[in-house]
């Protein structure tokens, strides 16, 4: 089954189209990069997929169900751009609470803490952590309960390069296990890690296919150059 299918999705805010006729399909077991400058509609698209954004036109299905369906809620993990965690709880307390919602075990909490390298900070109040550490708590919560779909809004911003490397290989491992990942970024070099790409600009989708196909079509060697070429091409026609 296709993981996500969008058909002409349109979202308006204050009468202005934030997303205009966005159509694409994402297969399970892939890492898809949602790439676009700030303000291009990446977060709105992600919020639509996890079901907290009202859609004004088109259809959006996740695992064959309309986005936001009740039965999808136990299947997805969502990480917002600014860490959605309780700052007045410890790291462990944060995870323990969301573990109840995700039906995850205590053992899994400890495993995930090790994955995001926060084992040493687990009894620390979240407000005493650095921004990057808080972002990792937020990511750890999304990983609880092994969700089939992970929607991650700029999860690696401000992280140590080594840790970023580790997280990207974690994402690849998860995809290899059949999980679907949609990861947004405004950093083009992160796009090189994704096998599928969605390029978004001013609410319109410029590209939705594999990275290889994009490079081939634009005759470029990096996603950054390809993006530039697509934008220029779009303005000419």
């Amino acid at each position, binding site marked *: 089954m296709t993981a996500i299918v969008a058909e002409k999705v349109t979202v308006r805010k204050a009468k202005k189209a934030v997303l205009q006729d966005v159509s694409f399909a994402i297969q399970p077991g892939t890492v898809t990069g949602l790439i676009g400058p700030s303000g291009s509609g990446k977060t709105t698209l992600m919020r639509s997929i996890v079901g*907290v954004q*009202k859609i004004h036109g088109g259809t959006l299905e996740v695992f064959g169900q309309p986005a936001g369906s009740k039965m999808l*809620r136990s299947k997805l993990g969502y990480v917002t751009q*600014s860490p959605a*965690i*309780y700052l*007045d*709880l410890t790291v462990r307390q944060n995870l323990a609470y969301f573990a*109840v*919602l995700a039906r995850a075990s205590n053992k899994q909490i400890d495993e995930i803490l090790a994955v995001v390298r926060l084992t040493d900070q687990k009894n620390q109040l979240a407000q005493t952590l650095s921004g990057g550490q808080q972002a990792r708590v937020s990511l750890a919560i999304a990983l609880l309960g092994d969700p089939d779909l992970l929607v991650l809004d700029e999860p690696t911003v401000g992280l140590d390069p080594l840790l970023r490397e580790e997280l990207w290989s974690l994402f690849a491992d998860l995809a290899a296990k059949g999980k679907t990942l949609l990861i947004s970024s405004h950093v083009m070099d992160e796009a090189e890690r994704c096998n599928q790409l969605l390029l978004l600009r001013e609410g319109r989708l410029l590209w939705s296919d594999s990275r290889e196909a994009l490079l081939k079509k634009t005759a470029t060697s990096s996603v950054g150059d390809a993006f530039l070429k697509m934008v220029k091409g779009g303005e000419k026609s």
Partner: protein
Amino acid sequence: MMYHLRITFATATRILHQLSHDHRTVALIFLVPCLLLSILWWLFEDSRATFDHLAPALLGVFPFVLMFIITSITTLRERIGGTMERLMTAPMGKLDFMLGYMIAFGLLAIVQALLASSLLLYVFDLDIAGPDWFMVSVALCDALLGTALGLLVSAFARSEFQAVQFMPAFVLPQFLISGLLMPLDKMPELLETIAYFFPLTYAIDALNEVALHADLTDNAWRDLWVVVGCIVVAVLLGALTLRRKS
């Protein structure tokens, strides 16, 4: 069902954990009503009769106001911090969320009501005609009512500034026409009619009844049930007005 029960209790535990890291807030919840009642006692040092009349009613008002503010700010913080949106993408029921808050703040309210009424009864020797337990129960229900209404109106606040102003806008009018400043039957007719639509009117009437009558009157019981009914309605309405999508 079991799952939702577990989420509700996990939510209550989570809120209590949050508060346990904030001793000052907990101390304020417990001590502010006591402080206010002490000032009242001092103020009416020479007129015990007035104190005996006012204190039970205010035992209902202070926890109500306090819990209203605390809940509306806490839930607003949850909204602004993004954790509410995270919960709404998870399999959490809206009622689980509301009841979790009611249980956590309800436990605080029990301690608060017991502390404030013990102070009145045993330190200030407050003289009421009716049974003490009824007065404590009404005070407790008032705190729960404040919590439930705080949860309900915080859904309509977009910023902290708005949420804070809901207190004077929503609570003070109820207080002014609750029958404490002027008996209901002496008010302008329209105001009297309006007063009967507000739950605080019934809470204060119940406390007046228990202060004046040795036996629990039908009116006192009716008042208590109206307050309990308002708590239930506010919780259900609060759950209905929570929005998953925006």
